[in-house]
């Protein structure tokens, strides 16, 4: 599954490169708050798997400093909501430094952890940070959907000499996925910055990331019964965005629907629409692009409210039909 793929990726990279180490809350003796780092402390010990106190700003700064001085840290946020306490270190100390120093000082670090909505954890624990981190030059921002994405992209992120924000999703951790032969190799990596067409289609392009790839594929299966063939693009990387992949698809289908869990204003979907407007694909659109997003409110707790705060499959189907005017 997704969780095991992340575990495998870290295990392989820890073994491959002495400089790689993991730090964060509960990553060592607790086996990881979500068990993503299970078994790693037992195997690698205190030096390479470090439990930190609950002090995000401090330990994130420490991780960034270690990266500046030659190590390759993986800094885990128990959830990305807590990264807000440390966001200055991510942006000002990590992301901008290679540029500010004109190449003298690099920061090879991965910030990873669950992002976005979980189940019943309410407003302070449910925010999606794809748009916030995706906004900043100097960062790479990655959002895997399935286990293969998780493994290949995390290995690439760890091997990357630049700061990478790696957005996982707690609801995906337990989801089982089949993994290809190829992905079993210790050198299996997926390039950062390249999207993947998960399903070919001719009538509409759906662009999405993380958990919503599943929703889009489910919606596509339903729509296929009505003769609507959806092309589903799994972004895999938020920054840099694979605009070419999106444009090629839109130029084929003439319709665009973006789907994300984050809030609508200044979101990932907004950026995709703007980019499509500015490029060659605009002239191929037969209708304005549509964004399907989380509801523009803090996340409520009650199940019925929470369910209706995030895109459901019926919302995606409805939006596709509206866009196609059927």
């Amino acid at each position: 599954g997704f969780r095991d793929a992340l575990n495998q990726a870290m295990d392989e990279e820890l073994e491959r490169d002495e400089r790689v180490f993991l730090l964060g809350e509960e990553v060592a003796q607790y086996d990881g708050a979500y068990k993503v780092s299970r078994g790693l402390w037992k195997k690698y010990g205190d030096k390479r798997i470090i439990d930190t106190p609950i002090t995000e700003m401090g330990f994130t700064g420490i991780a960034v400093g270690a990266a500046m001085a030659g190590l390759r840290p993986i800094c885990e946020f128990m959830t990305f909501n807590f990264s807000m306490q440390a966001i200055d270190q991510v942006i000002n100390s990590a992301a901008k430094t290679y540029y500010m120093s004109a190449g003298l000082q690099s920061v090879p670090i991965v910030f990873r952890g669950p992002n976005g909505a979980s189940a019943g954890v309410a407003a302070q624990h449910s925010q999606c940070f794809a748009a916030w981190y995706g906004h900043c030059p100097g960062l790479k921002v990655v959002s895997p959907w399935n286990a293969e994405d998780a493994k290949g992209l995390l290995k690439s992120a760890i091997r990357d000499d630049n700061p990478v924000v790696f957005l996982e999703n707690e609801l995906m951790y337990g989801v089982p996925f089949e993994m290809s032969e190829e992905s079993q190799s210790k050198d299996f990596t997926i390039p950062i910055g390249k999207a993947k067409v998960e399903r070919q289609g001719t009538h509409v392009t759906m662009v999405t990331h993380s958990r919503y790839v599943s929703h889009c594929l489910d919606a596509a299966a339903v729509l296929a019964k009505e003769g609507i063939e959806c092309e589903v693009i799994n972004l895999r990387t938020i920054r840099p965005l694979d605009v070419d992949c999106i444009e090629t698809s839109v130029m084929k289908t003439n319709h665009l629907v973006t789907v994300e869990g984050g809030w609508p204003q200044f979101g990932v979907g907004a950026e995709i629409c703007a980019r499509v407007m500015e490029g060659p694909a605009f002239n191929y659109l037969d209708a304005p692009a549509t964004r399907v997003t989380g509801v523009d409110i803090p996340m409520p707790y009650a199940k019925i409210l929470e369910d209706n705060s995030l895109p459901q499959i019926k919302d995606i189907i409805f939006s596709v039909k509206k866009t196609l005017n059927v």
Partner: protein
Amino acid sequence: MSACLLAFATAVLEPVKLQWLFNDFILGYFQDVLLGSRVVVSRSFADFTPQATFDIKKCDVHRLEEGPPVKATLTRDQGLQYYRIMQTVRRMELKADQLYKQKIIRGFCHLYDGQEACAAGIEAAINPSDHLITAYRAHGYTYTRGVAIKEILAELTGRKGGVAKGKGGSMHMYAPHFYGGNGIVGAQVPLGAGIALACQYQGNNQVCVTLYGDGAANQGQLFEAFNMAALWKLPCIFICENNKYGMGTSVERASASTDYYKRGDFIPGLRVDGMDVLCVREATQFAADHCRSGKGPIVMELQTYRYHGHSMSDPGVSYRTREEIQEVRSKSDPISLLKDRMLSNNMAAVEEFKEIDIAIRKEVEEAAQYATSDPEPPLEELCNHIFKNDPPLEVRGTHPWATLKSVS
């Protein structure tokens, strides 16, 4: 003549102990005062005291049985070197002041004059292979960590010959084992603890000197860093440069406790006279030994003073008196302190210091010439250095038709 001086020195300069090397007395020796240049001095080599031991102010200690030694030995060569370094930083900062007033330097410019003994003393006690990180009042450290004056000034004037090719400016200069130059108050402290973690991890016996000011001393992230550094026994020397004012706010108005050397709580601390380069050196040596022996971090408070305001936009006299500034200048100037010590102990001649001053002025002037005549960075390089080791990247310009290129 030298015999008279010896008598004078012995009689008058109690309790300083003098050591003499007995050489052949040959008049008219040429003497290298500066690297690469020769200067004739009126005194011969054998006239000068080659080494002297000075009493230095005792450090206040926190959670330590004993502090650094109360005596420091200074050789003539060391003295001249420290003088040269401090005077260079002083002249460089004053030149930056001048260039800023001429609007050739823009934006932020936080000057270090008055605090030279801190940078010079620290560097004298650590190795080039050790690490150092500081905040935004960083020009002095950029120099002591090995960057040439002209590259510092050219970075301030925003030219391609600047140490960061004009992309960083005053607060973002870097060198091997020197991590800037950091603009966000306090952020450099966890970074420094992280660098120390890397030293420990790699087992290289190196230490990281992590500097911050009295203003930053109240930042929460410092205490987070102290906690982890102590827990994990990181080889980190946390140094508070207490110049009595965080921007326009005096220490009494900002801190419930102004005993910055105690603020590390469970971390041992030293309070040091930051105007005396020998005090700083001895304390830093003590601190480095502490860290290298695996005892964990240590906090040092350097009591120092800045002559300029917080930055070039602050005249520095609305929250402190001109009298106070003048008093420090006349009684505690770090460069004068060192010079007077050396002169009083016959370690060098007045003319030597004059020659050094002239040479430094010339060097700084030439560096300023370079910094004002070097071309600005080429626009083609605007987007470079976003990522390391990446293929060329397209970067969005100010409008959709402006696609710029970024190379690693």
